[in-house]
């Protein structure tokens, strides 16, 4: 048996192991899962080491870029989490990560996700390609306004705000539905792909032709 055939058989075992979850609790699924978890833990460790080496250690050794020593030091502080007594020290690297995270995103956030959404809505509203399109674009504007009113937290949803929030919820549902529909189709391709693999490659390719 060559490596490719062996690979396909191993792959089939793991696909079937995962599919067995639909029949509820069983040993085959538990086994398959834990084996892959074992694999994934080592994989993340190897990638962690590789990229640490690539970004931090190599610049120090090859370019004498010593600023990375500071980063490595703070990265290592993460491990204080494993000790009960010094666990609080791990707050430092976390604070650094969060500070950089907030600082990177905050300045452009409002423009990209708030102003641009409003801008595109209005630009489109005034440049319809047909009457039908215009009606659709007015619908988008109505959605924009009503959904924002749904998210008011300090007022109870009654009266005008109540009806507006209700319409907003309908838009939310429509949006969620389309996302779900896309995902449904995508997951369908994934199952179809697996069935294709099991039928064409494994059953027909390996068992029937050998």
């Amino acid at each position, binding site marked *: 048996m060559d490596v490719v055939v062996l690979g396909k058989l191993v792959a089939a075992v793991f696909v079937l192991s995962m599919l067995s979850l639909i029949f509820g609790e069983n040993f085959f699924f538990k086994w398959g899962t834990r084996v892959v978890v074992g694999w994934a833990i080592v994989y993340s460790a190897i990638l962690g080491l590789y990229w640490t080496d690539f970004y931090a250690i190599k610049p120090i050794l090859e370019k004498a870029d010593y600023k990375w020593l500071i980063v490595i030091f703070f990265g290592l502080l993460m491990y204080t989490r494993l000790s009960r007594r010094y666990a609080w020290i791990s707050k430092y690297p976390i604070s650094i990560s969060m500070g950089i995270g907030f600082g*990177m995103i905050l300045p452009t956030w409002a423009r990209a996700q708030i102003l641009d959404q409003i801008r595109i809505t209005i630009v489109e509203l005034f440049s319809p390609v047909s009457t039908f399109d215009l009606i659709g674009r007015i619908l988008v504007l109505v959605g924009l306004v009503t959904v924002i009113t749904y998210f008011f937290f300090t007022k109870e949803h009654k009266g005008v705000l109540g009806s507006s929030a209700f319409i907003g919820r309908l838009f939310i549902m429509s949006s969620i539905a389309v996302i779900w529909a*896309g995902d449904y189709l995508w997951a*369908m391709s994934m199952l179809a792909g697996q069935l294709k693999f099991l039928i064409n490659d494994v059953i027909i390719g390996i068992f029937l032709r050998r």
Partner: protein
Amino acid sequence: MGKEQKNIWEKLGSLDYRLVYITFILLLAIPVVYPLGLPIEIQGNVRDYYDTIKNLPRGSVVLMHSFVDLSVWADTGPILIATWKMIYDEVVRNDLKIITYQSSVDGNAKMADLMKGELKPSQTMINNFGITWIDLGYIPVGSDATHAIMNADFTAMLPTIQHNLHFGTEWRGKPLLDVPILKEVAKRGGKPNILEAHDIDLLIIGYWGCTYPDTLVRQFWVAGDPAYEVTSVHMTIGNCVPNVVPYVGKNNPVTGYVAGSSQAAMLEILAGHLGEGAVMADLANLAGIGTVIFVVLGNLSYFGIKYFAKKEED
């Protein structure tokens, strides 16, 4: 549980889930063995995707993200392959310059396989590797921060070329600006001799993390000084459509997108290279019928209980 007798409507609404699962497995398995081969109608967004690439000015520079995630390959692979085949045609027809990269480890490996098999370039292209097109290899980009660095200067994110292809001329391990095409591209717009997003005319990018369009628009359109405003077309999966659509339009950041294997089939038809997408689109047919049947069954049960079951009790 055993005490109360279920009426027909209740039984209809509480079928064993395993029955549902097995029905769908069968519905998807039948076309694998007996293909149906139904006609496919081409949708607007796919046509826009195709037209954007087709109508690029002669000699444009395209940054192409070879989007591979092996775990979603069945759904997104057909799009990548159809796009690459189209790109091969356009390089010949329209003299496009292609810079490609991968943002996943499996992508790096898979591209090498593809370039040896399904996507084997012509001998002319192989000879021109590094001159009219180049594969940068794996770049760990994806977040706002990493894109911001890369877009300002590619060499900051990737000092040397990391590709896995072997075409005789070996660029792997060389500094970026040693490669003729990159040196030439770096001379264009923005800062001279720095390879940055200003030098790019079109971005073809793939993802299946649906917040990525936001990141892309922030980093390739809004950011930069002056703003980069790089137009992009997207290869994605069905459920990211609502995240892309807000940005789509003629003069907007995104000019077209292809979502999922069923739309890949449409691109294959447009570009004239039939492939895996058409097969995948075919598989969805019977499952679509199954979906309708189960929605109807669930609702029959719901309305049956609501309107008829009560009367029986009276």
